[in-house]
């Protein structure tokens, strides 16, 4: 039986920012949040001419990402579509501040990825298909550990874990060691881990890779629910069906460069074909 995530009641927030709600702080809180509200009208992810060059002793310097630019807004799922080795993961790693760009800039929720890397990471949820969990810990312990790393106190962690247990239906295995969990259950724990601090921005790097149909469906449904929650989602994949099912806008990436970006309709109109696989191939210059 498939699992359907329930939308969270909470609005996007970062746990390190606490706004008091009691009078007179309630009014103050609204005033403080107002600029943030206005900000969400604007792109939350802004990438301008981002490049990354890896130096290799044998083959010389290799440009993995070459002048990539795009923007993504709240409540939008932005897809990065490309073949393996196209530069999707490197782009996500640059934006997640795991790697440092060789040139170009990017801002996540208003923070520069180089100058304010820690602030960026606080606002970010990151999930990859290859992400593992700590096998010797229980699911609850994994969540508490990451909650602590994200600066959440015990009360915040306990409340948020309870919320996610309900939303992601974790109760059955929350206190079981992760090495005893099925692949799908582990992936649900990973999802919970990535959204535990309720970040406004979520990165998914081929999140369904290696998952069976049921587990992959869980992930896809969760990503959809993130849009409903007003999150800004950056979704990297090479699977056309997932792009068609999920993405509001797409950037087609190949050899580290963005060849085209727009909505599905815009890209179909641009190439004059309907089948999205053919759209992709035409955009990267492959004519069948």
């Amino acid at each position, binding site marked *: 039986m498939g699992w359907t995530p329930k939308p969270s009641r909470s609005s996007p927030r970062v746990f390190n920012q606490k706004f008091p709600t009691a009078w007179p702080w309630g009014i103050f809180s609204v005033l403080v949040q107002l600029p943030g509200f206005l900000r969400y009208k604007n792109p939350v992810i802004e990438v301008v001419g981002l490049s990354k060059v890896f130096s290799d002793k044998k083959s010389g310097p290799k440009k993995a990402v070459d002048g990539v630019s795009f923007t993504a807004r709240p409540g939008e799922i932005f897809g990065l579509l490309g073949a393996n080795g196209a530069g999707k993961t490197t782009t996500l790693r640059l934006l*997640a501040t795991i790697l440092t760009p060789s040139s170009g800039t990017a801002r996540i929720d208003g923070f520069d990825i180089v100058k304010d890397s820690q602030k960026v990471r606080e606002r970010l949820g990151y999930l990859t298909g290859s992400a*593992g969990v*700590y096998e*010797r*810990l229980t699911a609850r312990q994994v969540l508490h550990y990451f909650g602590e*790393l994200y*600066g959440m*106190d015990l009360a915040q962690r306990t409340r948020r874990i309870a919320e996610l247990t309900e939303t992601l239906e974790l109760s059955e295995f929350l206190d079981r060691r992760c090495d005893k969990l099925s692949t799908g259950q582990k992936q649900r724990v990973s999802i919970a881990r990535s959204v535990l601090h309720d970040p406004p921005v979520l990165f998914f790097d081929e999140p369904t890779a290696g998952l069976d149909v049921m587990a992959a469906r869980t992930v896809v449904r969760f990503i959809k629910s993130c849009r409903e929650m007003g999150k800004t989602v950056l979704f990297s994949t090479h699977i056309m069906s997932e792009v068609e099912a999920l993405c509001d806008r797409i950037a087609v990436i190949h050899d580290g460069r963005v060849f085209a970006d727009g909505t599905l309709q815009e890209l179909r109109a641009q190439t004059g074909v309907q089948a999205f696989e053919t759209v992709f191939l035409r955009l990267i210059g492959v004519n069948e």
Partner: protein
Amino acid sequence: MSNSGRWRTVFRKEFSEVWRERRSLFQLVLMPLLITPLLLAGVGKMTRSRIDDARKESVTLGIVGAKNSRLVEELIAGQNAAQTRVSFRPVGTRAEAEAAIQKRDLRAALVVPADAETAVEESRPIDLILLSDQGSDESQNAADSARKLFDKFTTVVVTRRMQAADLPMQTAEPLRLVEKSVAGGGGAGMMMLTTLLPYILSLSAILGGVGVAFDAVAGEKERGTLETLLVSPVARRELVLGKFLTVSAIALVNSVFSVVGMLWPFYVKLPMFAWMAAGGLKLSGGAIAALFFVQMPVALLGAGLLLTISTLSRNQKEAQGYLAPLMLVMSVASMMTVLLKTESPLWWALVPVTNSGLVLKQALSGIVNPTFVAVACGASLLYAALAIFYARTVFEKESVLLKA
């Protein structure tokens, strides 16, 4: 929680996670606490019984030229009549004796020159030749018996000459050595501790953290959990600090259990440890403090090196490959403490691992050399700081960290 205190979270999680594995309990607690002392007791018992067997074993010594000397004939007859474990067999020539030793028919042989009897009478020195196989323990034991016979032979000759010169017998024996053992000075066990403990502790301070260190970075790369840590707001220096402290702490725990494992047989009266505990244990408070104190910089140095290896490796298997050369170097450095004199020159205090082992050896022998201890600890801390710095530098390298 402040941003700068997240290393504590990393440390707490990593340290507690280690104890969730049965393998860790076996390697870190059971091995040093039980298996090592039991193995030592077994090896010690075997060695002791071998020595006892050798003592009880009857030894046949060859004597070349016995017929040329009435004196030697008398001596042999006396020895054989006394029915000791050493008996003598006359052999015709030196070549025959050598062939018999090579064939293991004889263990050793004494060659008495043809003019021995005349030399005794003329008060000339007599050259006896002892033949033995240097590569055989049994032959060397027999040679020892021959040496004792040589001493007896010397006494007999001297006595004869004294009588001939009409001198009192006391002239031949100007000094007497009276041996007395001192109670509580330590016996075979104490000797074993002084020799082996520095070696075992130096190794355990470094190798105790291997599993944890390899799991901490290479293992996280393998499982895909490292990337999730890198996107958390924890600074990399805090991650590396938390992991480094975990490895150091585990290595120290392993060292403490190794010390306890080596000491408890002295206090628990079990028959298997009787040979070890026979002479008692004379260990001052300072020596026990030194045991634990000097382990710290070695454990820190080991943690830095192991974390560096772990970070440079794609997975734990690759890390194991890099471990082999480090193991070799560390084993040699530890082994040096067994080979070196307790009071070695000061420059040995600069040699990592060996220096800590020597401080331990000195402490166990009741020697306190503040200069040596200070230089050894200072040098070890410096090497540890360099190792930590290098581990952190490697951990900051994105090309190394994301290698998979």
